[in-house]
């Protein structure tokens, strides 16, 4: 095993995998708790899902799809994904076990996406990217591909924050804080206490909204920050996701996004060492 030789890259990737596995585990448990919606007559019914594309209905693979996507087989698929999460969390030091775990999570996540919508969100999207790319990278014994994987994940994280921030900063509503109020007033994404407080303090709401926009827009530039400032900057990111989880209820986002932070720190440190700065 070559782990001790490439310890830094491997440790970074295993921390990413472990943190993202918590998000997938939580997501799978939540889906399993909605088991009755996966039945033939439920909101996530495979019998209706498969009617969404004519190619799907006429596909030669439909008997196989029926076998793995219909109720109750889909619950086994979710259970299998949880087992792979366990494999990742308990075998961080073993490359092959970690590889099997990552490949398992990636393939079950892709299968569940093929099955059809069941309330998947941006966190599921991010974890799918993490585990698919991890499986591809960990198959190779070469540390340089692992480094490329770390840079790839950092780039995806930058893209996620920057896209969201860049699109929103152009809207007057987000800059003034009124769009944040609109989100907070909803039962689905908001919170009554926070909405009342935000309405009573429009200046604070504006500052909060602008802070998030600035954080997201300058995220790619943060790669250039000195490491101490970068840690404080990412601390703000953790706080942002904790608040999102507590107020909006986006609990899996917290784990899925902070999972990539170690990769971002690694990329920044490598960048600095390449530039000869600290």
């Amino acid at each position, binding site marked *: 095993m070559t782990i001790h030789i490439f310890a830094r890259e491997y440790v970074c990737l295993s921390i990413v995998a472990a943190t993202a596995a918590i998000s997938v585990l939580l997501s799978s448990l*939540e*889906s399993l708790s*909605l088991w009755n*919606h996966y039945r033939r*007559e*439920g*909101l996530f*019914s495979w*019998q*209706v899902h498969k009617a*969404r594309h004519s190619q799907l209905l006429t596909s030669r693979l439909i008997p196989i799809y029926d076998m793995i996507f219909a109720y109750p087989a889909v619950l086994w698929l979710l259970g299998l994904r949880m087992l792979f999460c366990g494999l990742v969390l308990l075998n961080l030091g073993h490359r092959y076990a970690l590889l099997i775990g990552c490949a398992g999570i990636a393939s079950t996540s892709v299968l569940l*996406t093929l099955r059809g*919508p*069941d*309330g*998947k*969100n*941006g966190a599921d*999207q*991010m974890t*799918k*990217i993490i585990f*698919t*790319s991890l499986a*591809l990278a960990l198959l*190779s*014994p*070469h540390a340089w*591909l692992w480094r*490329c*994987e770390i840079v*790839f994940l950092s*780039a*995806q994280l930058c*893209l*996620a*924050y920057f*896209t*969201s*921030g860049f699109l929103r900063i*152009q*809207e007057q*509503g*987000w800059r003034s804080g009124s*769009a944040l109020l*609109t*989100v907070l007033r*909803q*039962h*689905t994404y*908001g*919170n*009554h206490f926070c*909405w*009342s407080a935000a309405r009573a303090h429009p200046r604070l709401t504006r500052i909060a909204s602008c802070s998030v926009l600035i954080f997201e827009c300058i995220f790619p530039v943060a790669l250039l920050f000195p490491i101490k400032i970068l840690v404080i900057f990412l601390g703000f990111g953790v706080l942002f996701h*904790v608040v999102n*989880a507590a107020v909006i*209820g*986006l609990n899996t986002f*917290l784990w899925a996004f902070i999972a990539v932070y170690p990769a971002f720190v690694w990329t920044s440190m490598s960048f600095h060492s390449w530039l000869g700065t600290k």
Partner: protein
Amino acid sequence: MWHIYDGLVLSFFGLWFLCSCIAQRRVLPRVLRRDQAGLIPNCRFFAPRPVSFDLSVYLRTQDERGCHSSWQPLVEGDKTSLCFVWNPSHRLRKTVYDLTDMLQQQDRRETWHLSYPYLLLLNACTTAARSLPEHGRRVQFVITARAGYEDIIQNIIFLSHFHPY
């Protein structure tokens, strides 16, 4: 052998990231719309304009005499204080948003009732109708929008036909 594999994976990562960047445009190229595995991310999260309304689905039944039951919510349960660790009902509400979005994207209004999101909602509403204490013969559902805590008035954005069950 491994060097070829590494090169292929590296090229794949490059292509993947490029497609991810292109996919953030408003109009997706046709090839990216075929990404059934969902590997190309959509990073817009609430951008540029946030979701403005709470969407809900309600259903009612009609008996043989034409009498209607009261409207019942399809998805029950509000967010709890534990939502930062455990929030499964969010998946149901998110599904309602996704299906409403799909329904509104249907080009031909006269065939909405044959569309996939309509059938999925009807399927779930039919099941919910069977478990209602007031039994009927036909079921109808409605999708409403309201401004959350600000306004309790539910505006109808979609009303289905009655369907026998």
